[in-house]
């Protein structure tokens, strides 16, 4: 009981800081390779390609808003990865051929990047 009270007293971590499970992040990197996300984005952990057409996703776990507009939550990010134009009208990122599960894994990978 005392422990629970003690824990509750702790400051909550930053809203966007998440610790996704490692199996999901591993699958996420595989999905990123298969979909070819690197053609447009520099993504930590992906040596090649390191495209520059889209924004670099370095430090993505610390950004405030997805694409400068959407709340940075796992479900929103997964939906954005799968169908960006639907999630944010006018987005120049096209819908990507990934399954909902893959999109969740990719979101997990992006949240699991370096915490710095």
């Amino acid at each position: 009981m005392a422990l629970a009270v003690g824990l509750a007293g702790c400051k909550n971590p930053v809203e966007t800081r998440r610790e996704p499970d490692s199996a999901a992040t591993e699958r996420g990197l595989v999905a990123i390779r298969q979909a070819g996300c690197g053609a447009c984005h520099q993504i930590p952990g992906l040596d090649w390609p390191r495209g520059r057409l889209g924004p670099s996703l370095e430090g993505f776990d610390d950004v405030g808003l997805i694409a400068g507009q959407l709340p940075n939550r796992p479900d929103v990010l997964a939906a954005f990865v799968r169908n960006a134009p639907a999630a944010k009208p006018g987005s120049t990122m096209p819908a990507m051929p990934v399954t909902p599960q893959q999109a969740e894994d990719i979101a997990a990978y992006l949240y699991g990047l370096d915490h710095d």
Partner: protein
Amino acid sequence: MIEAFWGWPPPVLDPAGPYASSVTTLAWALFGLSVFVTAVVIAALWVAVKGPARWKAMLGGERAIWIGGVAFPGVVLTALLVWGLTLTASLTEPIRGDEMRIRVTGEMWWFRVQYLDGSGAVIMEDANEIHIPAGVPVVLELESADVIHSFWVPHLSGKKDMIPGRRTLLRVEADRAGEFGGVCAEYCGMQHALMGFVAVAHEPPAWEEWRQGRTQALAPADLANGPPDEAGSQGQSLFMESGCAACHRVAGTQATGLAGPDLTHVGSRRTLGAGILPNNRGTMMGWIGDSQSIKPGNRMPSYDVLSAEEIEAIATWLGQQQ
């Protein structure tokens, strides 16, 4: 990126046809024999250093040299030569001339693919994807547009150089339908490692269907893939205006460039950038806008002068070229 599809490097001991099969059998035999010989040499070394005096004397005697140095290698190597030549005879059989022919030209850094009719005239143009019927030997005419490349689909056959100014012939055959990764196997410049392709073997009826679809789409009367929709038609005019048409051909349009890959059916290809990226609208946009980041030094400039919307329109239209 090819590793995402067909394994990297392409599995070299997993033959999918008679030619690759004989090479694989020979490779295993050589491997087994070399393991055996190495074991014998190590055993002899042990005897020479630590063995009993009587064995040492035998090992140093004239008889051991006649047996181990002359008779054994003479017999084994001769037998291996005869067996190896018999085993791989099919690889060097003369070309009959009535086989199906496909010309594959190594370029900087992609593969031009041309399907030939009986008289050697080009009937279909493609790039980085070779479609063949399963169970039928196909003769590949290998050429090069610049430096020496080498054509290699480990599943289907051995390697063969692509030499400027010379035509080399390679017979391939797949005994089952499937997709088999191929690579350039001769260092040809900075992006040598990003010069891949895929050989697709179809069951014969499916191949015939594929061929008919392709030849029909190439007939001038059947303009490309029908009238493009609004997004596509904007992409088409941008493609023509931005200079893409100077290097790329799209059958049924004003695009007749020959320097780069034929894009008539680019939307149906499995990969982009010569076997290195999966083909989808996102990667297509990335390639158009920034191909030099993905494959530095390739002959297509990054079209970063175009806006994101323009790049997307072109990618949309190209995706429609099925």
